[in-house]
């Protein structure tokens, strides 16, 4: 999903940077609030950023005969809500743009919009939706990470199609072209990302029950569960 340096026309590059900026500002605020109010979160925040660091460095072969990489943004979005991932994802992208010549500074805004903003929000929305319907935690986690990954690449396809519409078939033609490069390749990788996120969440459940409860990922079964039931009963 890394659009290479200089590969978006200036107007598009600026527009996506402007679109991303408020999300990143919001993210910096919510990140510093989290660290100030819950200093004990710092370690888990670091681990969430580290997960994105690892996964976005892994170029994995896919069924289409190309390689692509997961994003790792679903985990942090579930744990700390999406704004925090706008920052952690952008830091990862910045590292790759500066040291690896992967992505770029002019395309940082567009890449941040897909990987650090839309991906986390889409994954988080799926997570909340499934949780509302009492889907088991690990199933919700899987689909959240899956959607965070896949939606990121769909956004990249749209961004490129907007910038480079096909001369004959227009925006939709270009969308099909970029979509076939990114989106289909990404499906098995999104499955892998879902499974890896489930793995890390399982390890967290085993090792950090207290923190997951505080973050609202695990629910204390006694009080809230009973109250939830009586509320629904009262409604019925």
């Amino acid at each position, binding site marked *: *999903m890394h*659009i*290479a*340096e*200089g*590969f978006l026309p*200036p107007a598009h590059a600026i527009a996506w940077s402007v679109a991303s900026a408020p999300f990143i500002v919001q993210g910096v605020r919510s990140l510093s609030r989290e660290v100030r109010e819950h200093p004990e979160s710092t*370690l*888990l925040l*670091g*681990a969430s*950023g*580290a*997960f*994105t*660091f*690892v*996964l*976005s*460095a892994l*170029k*994995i*072969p896919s*069924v*289409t*005969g*190309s*390689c*692509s990489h997961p994003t790792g943004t679903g985990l942090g979005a579930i744990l700390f809500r999406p704004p925090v991932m706008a920052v952690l994802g952008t830091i990862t992208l910045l590292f790759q743009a*500066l*040291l*690896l*010549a*992967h992505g*770029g500074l*002019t395309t940082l805004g567009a890449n941040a919009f897909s990987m650090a903003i839309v991906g986390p929000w889409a994954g988080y929305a799926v997570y909340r939706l499934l949780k509302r319907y009492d889907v088991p935690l690990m199933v919700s986690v899987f689909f959240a990470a899956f959607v965070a990954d896949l939606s990121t690449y769909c956004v*990249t396809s749209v961004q*490129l199609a907007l910038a*480079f*519409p096909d*001369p004959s078939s227009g925006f939709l033609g*270009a969308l099909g*072209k*970029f979509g076939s*490069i*990114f989106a289909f*390749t*990404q499906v*098995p990788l999104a*499955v*892998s990302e879902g*499974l*890896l996120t*489930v*793995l*890390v969440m*399982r*390890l967290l459940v*085993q*090792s950090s029950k207290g923190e997951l409860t505080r973050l609202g990922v695990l629910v204390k079964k006694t009080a809230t569960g009973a109250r939830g039931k009586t509320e629904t009963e009262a409604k019925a």
Partner: protein
Amino acid sequence: MSKMSKNAKINILLVAVVAALAVLPVVLGLGDHKKEPFTGADAQAETAITEIDPEYEPWFSPLYEPPSGDIESALFALQAALGAGVLAYYFGLRKGRRQGEERARAEQAGKAEQVEQTGEAGKAEQPEQAHAPAPEGA
């Protein structure tokens, strides 16, 4: 104990499925229909851009570019290693803390038991206490 190993089994299974998803496309030769199999999707998008708009010239180039593919690979590996290191630190620290807490709890429970025992023993021996020193000192 059996519950622990079931957990571990599920974790190993998850890793195995991810590994299979990555390895199978290569083993099954799913890239064979391409001139250059298993290139990066990001690089393919660049090619697609130049196909759609052959006149497009990137208007900015990276400030730093790894001088060779090998160095690029090394930097990617470094990125993964940094992330994996932080994750390993986190889980290692958690496990150590948990073990420490368990040990402290076990020690405290042990002490409490000892106090109870010596307390009872003390009561029983109270009449003779003047003659014999406390048994736990020995």
